């Protein structure tokens, strides 16, 4: 599925405006971004710079006013609402701040639910949890897990349906330095070894060493970060 010639994410000249009348602001201003399978891209920038808007656009949760968004070759801005939901289910994985796990489900059930949403009743929970180093916590609920553990389960959950694109929203917001590095290293590992394109939004510049490409977002404009590695 994830061949190397089709970009996992291809955003071209996207403009997104939010609000009405006087308060209307340009959240994304002519943004273009291409991420290939196996690439780990980070977007840094101050809060309010448009990072979250970019994730919403890439995740087909918001539609751009201008420009196109292709995820693994499909123009998601042309899909109907329900088709968008189905497309997101199978092609896009989300990792949210502090994991955003469902409080009532054990780590294993978080993954099983993600599988069931896509009609898959036989998720290999053990392997998936093992790949994020969480096999031993399979029967624990989010309330019994630490912030880092929750984030790892969240990453495993996002990968259940083998998406071609993984969108990551501030994964280190609630973590200490050591755990931040562990989680971001895990994301890099998944990108490189599971051949998924990962786009991470963060304001934590400490963890950028794990990323392949770094972009900076300022006032809705995206540019290649100065300290490219």
């Amino acid at each position, binding site marked *: 599925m994830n061949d190397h010639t089709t970009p996992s994410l291809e955003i071209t000249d996207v403009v997104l405006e939010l609000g009405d009348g006087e308060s209307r602001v340009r959240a994304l201003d002519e943004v273009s971004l291409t991420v290939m399978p196996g690439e780990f891209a980070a977007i840094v920038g101050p809060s309010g710079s448009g990072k979250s808007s970019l994730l*919403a656009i890439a995740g087909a949760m918001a539609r751009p006013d201008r420009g196109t968004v292709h995820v693994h070759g499909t123009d998601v801005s042309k899909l109907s609402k329900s088709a968008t*939901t189905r497309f997101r289910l199978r092609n896009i994985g*989300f990792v949210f701040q502090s994991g955003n796990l469902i409080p009532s489900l054990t780590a294993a059930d978080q993954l099983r*639910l993600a599988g069931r949403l896509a009609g898959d009743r036989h998720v290999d929970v053990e392997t998936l949890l093992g790949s994020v180093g969480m096999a031993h916590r399979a029967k624990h609920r989010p309330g019994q897990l630490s912030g880092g553990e929750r984030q790892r389960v969240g990453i495993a959950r996002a990968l259940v349906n083998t998406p071609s694109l993984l969108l990551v929203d501030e994964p280190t917001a609630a973590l200490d330095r050591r755990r931040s590095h562990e989680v971001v290293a895990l994301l890099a590992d998944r990108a490189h070894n599971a051949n998924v394109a990962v786009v991470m939004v963060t304001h934590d510049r400490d963890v950028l060493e794990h990323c392949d490409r770094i972009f900076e977002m300022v006032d809705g404009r995206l540019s290649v970060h100065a300290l490219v590695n």
Partner: protein
Amino acid sequence: MFLALRELRFARGRFALMGTVIALISVLVVLLSGLSSGLVNDGVSGLKAMPATAFAFDEGTMKDNAFSRSVIDDEQLKTWQNADDVAAAEPMGVNIVNGVTDDGTQIDLTLFGVEPDGFLSPAVSTGEQLGAVAGIIVSEPLRDEGVELGSVVILDRLDLELTVIGFTEGQATFGHVDVAYLPIDTWRLMAAGLAEPGAPTQDQIDEMDFGYASVVAILAEEGVSIDFATIDVTAETTTMTLTESFNASPGYEAETLTLSMIQFFLYAICALVVGAFFMVWTIQRSHDIAVLRAMGASSRYLVRDSLTQAAILLVGFTVVGVAAGIGMGAAMPDAMPFDLEFEPIAIASGLTILLGMLGATIAVLRITRIDPLRALGGQR
């Protein structure tokens, strides 16, 4: 159902509280239903048991207490007997009397004067059929008052002596008073004011010239509907079907309306309480729902899951409540008119579940308005 069941287990405290409320409402619904059936039976079981299609009352009789108020004459009876589609029409006499049994117990009786050989003649569980001039068939529960076969009931003021020759099958009451069936001619003797102290005799009846009764009981031919309105005009009567005639028994309408109103409020409360609970529950987990929608869960899946949850909660706790209600009902004192009947209880618990689901559905539909974008960003 995957998520629904796990949430039920996870938030069992909250769901148990809600469930207790549902169960208590069901208990109340069952008790009211039992009381309602009990009162209805106490009020009109004597009528309910009758095989009549309808009753014709004298034209212009006030509806409440119409049975004992109405007077019909021979002409009216004959008009009905000769009318189209009428299989049989018989006179029936109704009045409520006080009496004393031979062991000194004071009892009240609703006298139903009927043709001993007619279709209104009651089925007898023990004793003889209706026939003897001084013989009465009384309602089964009168046994509890010490009445038995051969007991003599002396009616107050008239000093008329009637002998119990049989018991009806089950309860037969009218206006919360036990029924005593007696031959229509004996009833007429009393109504004409010709009854003399002591037991009535055939001679007294033979001398009587009195053709009145309270109402005409009408039996339709099988599968035919009688044109009541037209015959009513000719016979100068007002006809009520058997069910309509319940309202003509004392207090029936007031009792049933009161209880129906209480039940109606209970159903409304059930819908509102369950609706409010699921509203709060949905709002409480709206962030989780946003996350699920961002992951690609369809609204349909999420709504179906939540409705399954509501259904499990409602059905489960309604069953518990109904069982408890039936248990409590079985322990009710005899003085309380309380009858557990399958059909009304089934309907009542069905309505509780249905209206609970209605409330839950309205609340749960909020899910469709939750924006997956809420999953992005920090605040939970």
